[in-house]
């Protein structure tokens, strides 16, 4: 009999213990004692079992006509987490309403509607989820001034890219998460969420990621969705804009946005449009010294139509690969990106690069490999091969910059300006 959640009285070690049964992973009986501690018992005798009432808290939201309406779509992840009784682990469990009950400051910024679309870990997201989410966001944008999507941080940047290509948006679409689970007092969830609400009601018309800018609770960055990457496994400031600067930053305590990028997509600039087809037969391959081109043939044989290569340096793979690339590029699209992450691909400097271009590889410019992957899925889903090839090197939603700059200096300049 599963005793989890029940109050029991047991005899162990010559003493009577009372407590609530907690989930156990080791086969022990874990009791939460009256003093608050959990303790595991292996040798015990149960004397009494008692049902306890579950405490449920409900939040109801009242609308303030002065404030803009924002939709929060919850997909799971650390920003909406709770202790799971079954496994004892922190998992995505909160409903979207509970997020609002948790962060009452949101009600000072906007009227929040909330919907729990998924409750999945972000590593379990796939292309079908992106499409469903895009459709959901698209219809929300017709009614609301902005949309916030709470998302696990692991694959948040992928989802941001997917939405950026699929939805031409006149309003902000903000992805937000947390690096410290929201059950703890030090969680970054509340601050990130408050800053994302400020972003969702701002003068913006694109897909962005809003997360801590530093390890302190001072401000958040607004990262362009197609220019951001999770760069640290655990830190609050894990998200960095790559080959670009954040669009702006939000002062948490002052509740104020400072824009760094003036030629961002502004509110109302674009027409709302949805192009939600995605070609799933696209693959991202990271090259390493000695990797054989068989891998290309394998995927080609499986019917894959798009290949993003994460090459070395300026964008290279072994010259051994050239024949295979030549063969498959006739009816496939191959994009070269760099595992350097920072900088632009250029295959015109060395012989290998020139051979690769000749064999049919297209340079991915300064796109992140994963952004190139999502872009390729979208291009192949919505255009024919020749058209798609044309769009690879074209900047569609901010994924490619015109010229490469000293981004980090620009950012520190902006940050020091108002000190």
């Amino acid at each position: 009999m599963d005793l989890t959640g029940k109050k029991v009285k047991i005899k162990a070690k010559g003493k009577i213990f009372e407590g609530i049964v907690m989930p156990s992973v080791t086969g022990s009986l874990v009791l939460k004692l009256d003093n608050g501690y959990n303790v595991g018992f292996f040798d015990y005798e149960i004397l009494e079992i008692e049902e306890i009432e579950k405490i449920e808290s409900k939040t109801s939201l009242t609308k303030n006509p002065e404030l803009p309406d924002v939709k929060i779509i919850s997909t799971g992840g650390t920003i909406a987490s709770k202790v799971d009784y079954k496994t004892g682990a922190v998992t995505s469990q909160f409903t979207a309403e509970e997020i609002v009950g948790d962060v009452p400051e949101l009600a000072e910024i906007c009227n929040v509607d909330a919907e729990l679309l998924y409750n999945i870990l972000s590593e379990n997201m796939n292309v079908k989820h992106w499409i469903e989410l895009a459709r959901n966001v698209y219809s929300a944008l017709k009614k609301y001034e902005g949309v916030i999507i709470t998302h696990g941080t692991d694959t948040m940047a992928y989802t941001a890219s997917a939405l950026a290509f699929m939805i031409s948006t006149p309003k902000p679409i903000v992805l937000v998460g947390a690096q410290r689970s929201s059950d703890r007092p030090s969680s970054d969830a509340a601050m990130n969420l408050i800053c994302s609400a400020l972003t969702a009601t701002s003068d913006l018309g694109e897909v962005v990621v809003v997360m801590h800018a530093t390890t302190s609770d001072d401000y958040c960055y607004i990262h362009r969705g197609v220019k951001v990457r999770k760069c640290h496994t655990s830190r609050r400031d894990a998200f960095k804009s790559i080959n670009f600067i954040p669009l702006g930053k939000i002062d948490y305590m002052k509740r104020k946005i400072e824009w760094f990028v003036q030629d961002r997509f502004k509110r109302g600039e674009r027409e709302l449009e949805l192009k939600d087809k995605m070609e799933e037969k696209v693959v991202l391959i990271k090259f390493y010294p000695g990797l054989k081109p068989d891998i290309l043939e394998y995927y080609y044989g499986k019917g894959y139509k798009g290949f993003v290569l994460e090459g070395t340096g300026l964008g290279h793979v072994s010259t051994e690969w050239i024949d295979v690339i030549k063969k498959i590029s006739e009816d496939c699209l191959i994009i070269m990106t760099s595992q350097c992450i920072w900088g632009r691909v250029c295959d015109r400097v060395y012989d290998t690069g020139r051979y690769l271009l000749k064999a049919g590889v297209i340079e991915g410019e300064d796109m992140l490999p994963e952004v190139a992957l999502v872009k390729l899925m979208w291009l192949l889903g919505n255009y024919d091969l020749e058209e798609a090839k044309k769009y690879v090197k074209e900047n569609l939603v901010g994924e490619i910059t015109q010229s490469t700059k000293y981004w980090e200096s620009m950012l520190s300049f902006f940050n020091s300006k108002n000190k």
Partner: protein
Amino acid sequence: MQSTTKNAVDYNSVGLKVGIEIHQQLNTKCKLFCKCPTTHRDQEESNFQFFRYLRSKKSEMGEVDKAAVEEVKRSKRFIYLSYDTTCLVESDEEPPREINMEALELSLLIAKMLHMNVVDEVHVMRKIVIDGSNTTGFQRTALIAFDGWIDVGEKIGIATLCLEEEACRKIEDRGSEVVYSLDRLGIPLVEIGTKPDIKTPEMAKKVAAKLGMILRSTGKVKRGLGTIRQDVNISIKDGARVEIKGVQDLDILDKIVEYEVIRQISLLKIKEELIKRGAKVDKKIYDVSEVFKNTKSKILKKAKSVMAIKLEGFSGLVGKEIQPNRRLGTEFADIAKTFGLGGIFHSDELPAYGISEKEVEEVKKRLEAKEGDAIILAAGESERVKKALSRIIERAEQCLLGVPEETRKANEDGTTSYLRPLPGAARMYPETDVPPVKITEEMLKLEIPELIENRAKRYEELGLSKDLALMVAESQFYKLFEEYVKKLPATVVARVIYTVPTELRKEGYDINVLEEKHYRIVLKLIADGKIAKEGAGEVLKKMIENPEMSEEELINSVGGQSGLKELETFIDDLLNEKEELIKERKMGAFKPLMGEVMKVFRGKIDGKVVAEVLKKKLEVKTNIK
């Protein structure tokens, strides 16, 4: 006023119950949940700082802790100093590592020394603490053992032993911000709680001393200021359970208990009086800033707002002493301070502090206060003042009920100040990032070390005085004592490792630079007769000046010409010089010659050694002749 402070209290009839909670830092290599060292750092050595805010959260049981909520109301900014000896775990930027097994094993040993039952499986919990002293907003803690006892003439029960992480060191409280140092965060700590078996202040002190002695007997706990703290739980009949935090000085423990009993008795008397008067509390907070527009009170003049509350029938009682130099009004002021205000003014002490009679009258008029009513004034930023006063209203209402349950802070004079409401049991939930640890039979096979008090008894038998025996037994160098007591008299060894260094410390020498190897050299020199036992102080001084000096250099530096070689040369010369005398008296010349040698080498080379060398050389000389 007639004071309860001077009357002796019959602790039995007031039903005093005391429990002690001891927090002792463990001297392990690494912290409890990361691989950082447990070393103390100066704040100047910090190479990075950051700040955070904390929010209170619902626990897994759906309840919110009362103490936690009060902290959040204050919403301070917490600044943390980071070092090259701290990592992302302390900064709450990385999940904790698995529990430090060295610390766990040590806590099992202590449990065994306290005759406790150990749990089958250790589960680490998160105990909500949102005063910022933990970056996470909780303290990681695990219940290790329960139901033990110690013997202090009578058996006192030990309720629980927990292994937990130490909190940050508080550097500065700036009111709306607090600065903390991360060096201390995460040092393993054992928390030992007695049962409320203690019935007198003296017994409380005795129990704390005994527990401290047992902990130090492991030889693996941290020593020095701040490495051990006592919390005391006190209640009396009709009073309430009050938790007093952070008693660092064992010597005032009995006083703290005594004063808390006095406080609770006084509060009960105030309650009786209030009920007799039909007192009640007006819940309204009045803005009286206008009254003080042109006040002579500097504090009120520069304040953004001044507000007042009315306590009907409290007149004369707010100023009543409840502990030496502390009044009921002081309790209200403590609350104001926790909200970042300087304090309060109350009508029992006014007019004073630049506040005029007229101003007091005006406030009373605006509040429609009557003869027997008391007024409380608070000043500062209006949100803070409102929050503080509404909390003071709550506190005043509790005066009508008796003694409130609360957590208090120990002051140096043995009195206590209000800190926060008593935390409830709802403040814990599992630390899911740390897997539970099953306690195996193997882990419990631990050898119990000799207790310091028993060791001291042994040393007494070796001829040390009772006090000195205890000091040497407590010393971190007691093992050195045991080693050298086989070669030298116990009093000599005790002098070297305890008495002399203590004297040097009083003279202002920094004896902390001396390590075991230094004392070992000194003892060796004495045992080998290379220096006299009286010369130990000189050698130790040299070592303090230059801790890296070699044995040879040390011998040469004390007394210059000492050392066996010099002795031998001197004796050779002397024997040649006194040839006549030797011819005449043979071995009988020993005594006068010894006198000559000792004139030069007294205090530098042990007399026994001198005698030995002289005797040998004299024999050779007389045999040749």
